[in-house]
């Protein structure tokens, strides 16, 4: 008995160590990514673990007054807003690269600053309060605004949402129909063929047929369209969905269906009012697994999507990490943009999601 409890304690300790270190391995990189995404490029190399400092302590930042140039793109509408501007560029954030440029409305500036020439400098604290505050805010969020605007991440986020949402909906609707036919209608041989065909698809991934797929879709003018991409996601999502749905619906007593039939319900009626409500657990499972897969998918969109209109978030994020990119801070901010919404959704619906993943669908 004595021996047993000491064994027990050791087991318990080991269990805790495993779980705690697992949790730390999950949390620490994300935590590092989160705070590092607020660091300037230089800070990121200088001290890899330090907390962000430069972008937040910006009241003494020095700016240089620069002449209007081709590569200085105004951030306001030059046609409707004709007020004169003074263009200043940060001397600490990517100086000379026109990445941190502000257009100050001259009429809001004090005379003393207006008298300075191109090439002169000014510090942030010299500016009127309103301007100072705005620039200070822009400085803190520099990585984020740059990543989101230059990467067009908002549009890509929406696209990812569309792909995951619409495809998941179609997959659920179609696979429930097929699953009902396979498990509740008496065409054994036909069902075997249909089930076998679709089941085979689980072994395939988009990337093993990417070459012919691309050739085919471009002949039909479906590359670089939302519909083309959704179509592919739907087709590749079907095998698993049909498998899980069929398994689940087979478990629904046939007598339920029969008695509804006797009451004169059509097949559609049966599906909509009996099968669908009962199949909600498996639908949640299928939705989570497929939506997650599509949300994260990379290669298909990389190959099929050409324009900003159709690219998804992973492709957008990857563009910040290409071989020759030098903006490490933007890269981390882009990673955060891709991660944060998913994590927020996860933490809000965590319990339902983890339970939903199984939903009783994958059975022992």
């Amino acid at each position, binding site marked *: 008995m004595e021996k047993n409890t000491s064994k027990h304690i050791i087991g318990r300790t080991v269990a805790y160590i495993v779980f705690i270190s697992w*949790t730390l391995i999950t949390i620490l*990189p994300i935590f590092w*990514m989160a705070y590092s995404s607020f660091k300037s490029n230089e800070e990121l190399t200088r001290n890899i673990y330090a907390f962000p400092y430069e972008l937040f302590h910006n009241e003494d930042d020095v700016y240089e007054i620069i002449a209007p140039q081709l590569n200085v793109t105004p951030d306001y509408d030059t046609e409707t807003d004709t007020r004169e501007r003074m263009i200043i560029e940060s001397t600490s954030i990517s100086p000379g690269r026109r990445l941190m440029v502000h257009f100050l409305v001259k009429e809001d500036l004090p005379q003393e600053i207006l008298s300075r020439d191109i090439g002169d400098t000014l510090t942030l604290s010299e500016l009127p309060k309103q301007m100072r505050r705005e620039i200070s805010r822009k400085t803190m969020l520099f990585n984020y605004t740059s990543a989101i605007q230059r990467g067009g991440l908002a549009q890509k986020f929406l696209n990812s949402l569309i792909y995951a949402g619409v495809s998941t909906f179609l997959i659920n609707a179609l696979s429930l129909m097929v699953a009902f036919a396979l498990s509740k209608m008496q065409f054994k041989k036909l069902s075997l063929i*249909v089930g076998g065909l679709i089941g085979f698809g689980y072994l395939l*991934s988009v990337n093993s047929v990417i070459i012919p797929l691309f050739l085919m879709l471009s002949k039909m003018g479906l590359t670089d369209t939302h519909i083309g991409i959704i179509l592919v996601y739907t087709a590749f999502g079907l095998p698993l969905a049909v498998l899980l749905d069929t398994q689940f619906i087979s478990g629904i007593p046939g007598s339920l269906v029969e008695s509804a039939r006797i009451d004169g319900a059509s097949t559609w009626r049966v599906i909509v009012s009996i099968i669908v409500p009962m199949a909600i657990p498996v639908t949640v499972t299928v939705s989570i697994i497929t939506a997650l897969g599509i949300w994260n998918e*990379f290669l298909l969109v990389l190959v099929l999507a050409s324009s900003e209109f159709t690219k998804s978030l992973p492709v957008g994020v990857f563009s910040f*990490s290409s071989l020759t990119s030098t903006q490490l801070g933007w890269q981390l901010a882009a990673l955060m943009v891709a991660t944060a919404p998913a994590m927020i959704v996860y933490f809000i619906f965590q319990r339902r999601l983890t339970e939903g993943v199984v939903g009783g669908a994958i059975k022992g």
Partner: protein
Amino acid sequence: MKKRDIQALPTYLILVAPALLIYLFVVAYPIGYSVWLSFTDFNPNKGGQWDWVGTLQYSTMFKDPNFWHALKNNLIVVAVSVFGQIPIGFILAYILYRKKVKAVHFFQTFVFLPQFLSTIVIGILWKRLFQADGPISRIIQIVSKDPQAQFELMLYADTVMIPIAFALIWVYTGMYMTIFLANLQKIDDHLIEAAKIDGATESQIFLKVIVPLLAGTILVSSILAIAGSLRGFDLIFSITTQGLQRNNAMVLPIFMYQSAFQNYTNEMRFAYGAAISNIIVVISLILIGISRLVGKKTDY
């Protein structure tokens, strides 16, 4: 009965047709195409002229050391998935199930969390963590007190799969853990109580009661894991830099991608790429066949 069957046929077809059509169109046609392509020298850039070349692509592939290297790595990934993710997931689930730790939900949440991060994000983030003088190297430098120490596992063909296996386990184990946990929770407590009364030890309960009850779940999970691991592309693609690292960590899908899209000097590169993807499908068929067989054996 027969008559009703025939009456129901149109309904059956209507139910099955939309899914089947989309599926055949998007999946089956390219498969057929890919099989055809692999026996030709077709290159769409060459204006539609092509010849049968028999099994040339396949014999080239079997002579290519990169193929065997990629296959070996791929089998490592499969092994990590089947013998890493699943047992670890099972054990973690069992620990949670038997309430060996408190805060079950807290831990479950964090073990499952990586599922929700995009693989590309994980790849890029870990690449950053692994780079020269990066966060991991810094820790090694501090611990070993050697300011030149680096995290070098990504550099060598022999060791590159270690960090990748680690990442794979970290990302996917949560899924299996959750599946197992849900099924464990369905087990009737009385079974365990009864076994305890019979004097069974904790490990006996685990091996004699729990594992057999979940044999089906283990099998299904294994099939999911095998199929998933033969397709893995994103993670390895984004965690490695192009060059030595990616070549060292090459798995079949990356080998296919590089052969078809990057080796311009091979005029038959598309056909070659198609042959590689066909082999990936065949291998996963074989592995899943094996796992079914093993599954059946252990049932008796």
